[in-house]
């Protein structure tokens, strides 16, 4: 067997394992869907009326909520990877003559799928609350593409965190910044309404261009500058996460 087909078969076996985990531990999936929706209801129905964003608030908030759904979907992955590490499951795979990347690739794919399920749920609830995008088919394709890229990159980063963390608890905790980042971005209120310091942070952190690009796409008028920055962040996240994850995977026994 060639090394590529070996790697693919190994990845498929790992993916099957991780998919079974998701199906048998529905709480994880439920959490990653439920929290973004609770936050969505809170912002749209409770606070939203007080924000003046020059738009229907649900239309303004949905792109940020999609990113938030991704953030919540990631937490379970770092904890799962860490528990595999702590229980010796990863070492078991490492001492076998199987593809090194397969063990991690299975996690990346499952995480991406889980995050996209959360995004679909958020979109469904958004539509039920009157979300009214002006996006055409190509724009929707762009939204999907960007979400997949973001999830893919962030998955690698989360897996690296999971591999490097000392305990499952600290692995879970280490992903909290990912959940906080959307709050410190233009997800819920425009960044120019924020105080000095926070505003600059919000403008330059990775989620803001990603959210702005999503917002542009959903409104049917994407901005090239934001899209470029968003792509650059996604690629950067993927590279950094991948390199860190692979190095940690090799090193830790």
């Amino acid at each position: 067997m060639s090394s590529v087909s070996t790697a693919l078969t190994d990845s498929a076996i790992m993916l099957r394992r991780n998919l079974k985990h998701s199906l048998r531990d529905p709480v994880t999936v439920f959490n990653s869907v439920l929290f973004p929706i609770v936050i969505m209801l809170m912002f749209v129905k409770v606070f939203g009326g007080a924000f003046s964003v020059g738009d229907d608030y649900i239309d303004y908030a949905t792109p940020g909520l999609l990113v938030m759904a991704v953030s919540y979907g990631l937490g379970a992955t770092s904890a799962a990877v860490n528990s595999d590490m702590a229980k010796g499951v990863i070492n078991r795979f490492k001492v076998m003559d199987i593809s090194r990347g397969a063990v991690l690739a299975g996690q990346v794919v499952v995480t991406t799928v889980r995050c996209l399920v959360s995004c679909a749920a958020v979109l469904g609830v958004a539509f039920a609350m009157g979300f009214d995008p002006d996006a055409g088919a190509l724009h929707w394709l762009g939204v999907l593409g960007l979400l997949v890229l973001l999830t893919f990159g962030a998955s690698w980063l989360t897996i690296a965190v999971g591999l490097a963390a000392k305990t499952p608890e600290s692995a879970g905790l280490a992903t909290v910044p990912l959940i906080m980042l959307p709050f410190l971005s233009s997800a819920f209120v425009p960044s120019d309404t924020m105080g000095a310091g926070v505003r600059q942070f919000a403008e330059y952190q990775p989620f803001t261009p990603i959210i702005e690009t999503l917002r542009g796409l959903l409104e049917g008028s994407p901005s090239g500058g934001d899209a470029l920055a968003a792509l650059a962040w996604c690629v950067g996240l993927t590279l950094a996460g991948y390199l860190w994850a692979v190095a940690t995977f090799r090193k830790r026994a």
Partner: protein
Amino acid sequence: MESSAIEVSGLRKAYGGRAVLGGIDLTVPPGTVFSLLGPNGAGKTTTVNILTTLLRADAGTVRVAGHDVVTGTRQVRAAIGVTGQFAAVDELLTGRENLRMMADLGRVRGSGKLVARLLERFDLVEPADALVSTYSGGMRRKLDLAMTLVGAPRIIFLDEPTTGLDPRSRRTVHDIVRELVAEGTTVFLTTQYLEEADELSDRIAVLNGGTVAAQGSADELKRLIPGGHVRLRFTDPAAYRSAAAALREATADDAELALRIPSDGSQRELRSLLDWLDSVGVEADGVTVHTPDLDDVFLILTEQTERTGRAKEAIEP
């Protein structure tokens, strides 16, 4: 077949400047059981991790199944099976699925039959389709071992395989080890149970402070030390105390009300000991004679190294 299943020479490993392994040499002939004994922190798991390609050594060469672990990593991995210190089983899969996954990863043909046979062998047929999260510690351990055997590896590493097992499960593991060796498999074992090493191993190495304090068969190790003794047991604390005061050369065990006096166990020595006990007025409730066992070997080897760091020179002929 290559002349040695495992060949280690000059193996060194340090973590942050602290030496964990200070140059160890080991040889394991194929089809034998080799036990690595040592107190906690002696470097047993580090050794296993290096031999199983999980860790890189700082210096020295390690050949497993005829391949260098650094240049022939993949060949080594294809030849070995490893059961680590903690049961590395997937809790959200069933026992059968765990075995099935290993068979798939090893590209085993006819995996259904193999899995059924392993479940049978390890007495796991009944819970085979229950999630492993419902298994007891002993069941997990057995499943762990079964998973290691899936690819029929030629060399098996077992890092404390019976720690935390009840006597019955421990016996199952022992039987399996014997069967494996009868089939020609080489087993590299680390254990804290000395009688386990004594019973199963062809060769034993005592690891202490990152060096091999002694290496040989159980009998050879026992001959290295003057561990024979006579044990006097008392029921009356007062009698025990006066005896302890009279017999200064004895080692006292206050909790057990017992005294331990060095002796080779010969008739002549026993008689003179008993005569002497009479003369000083010591009356024990029980007298037992002990020949040195692996416990004595272990205690003396590891104690002396702790104290002088020169046990090797002191003990080896």
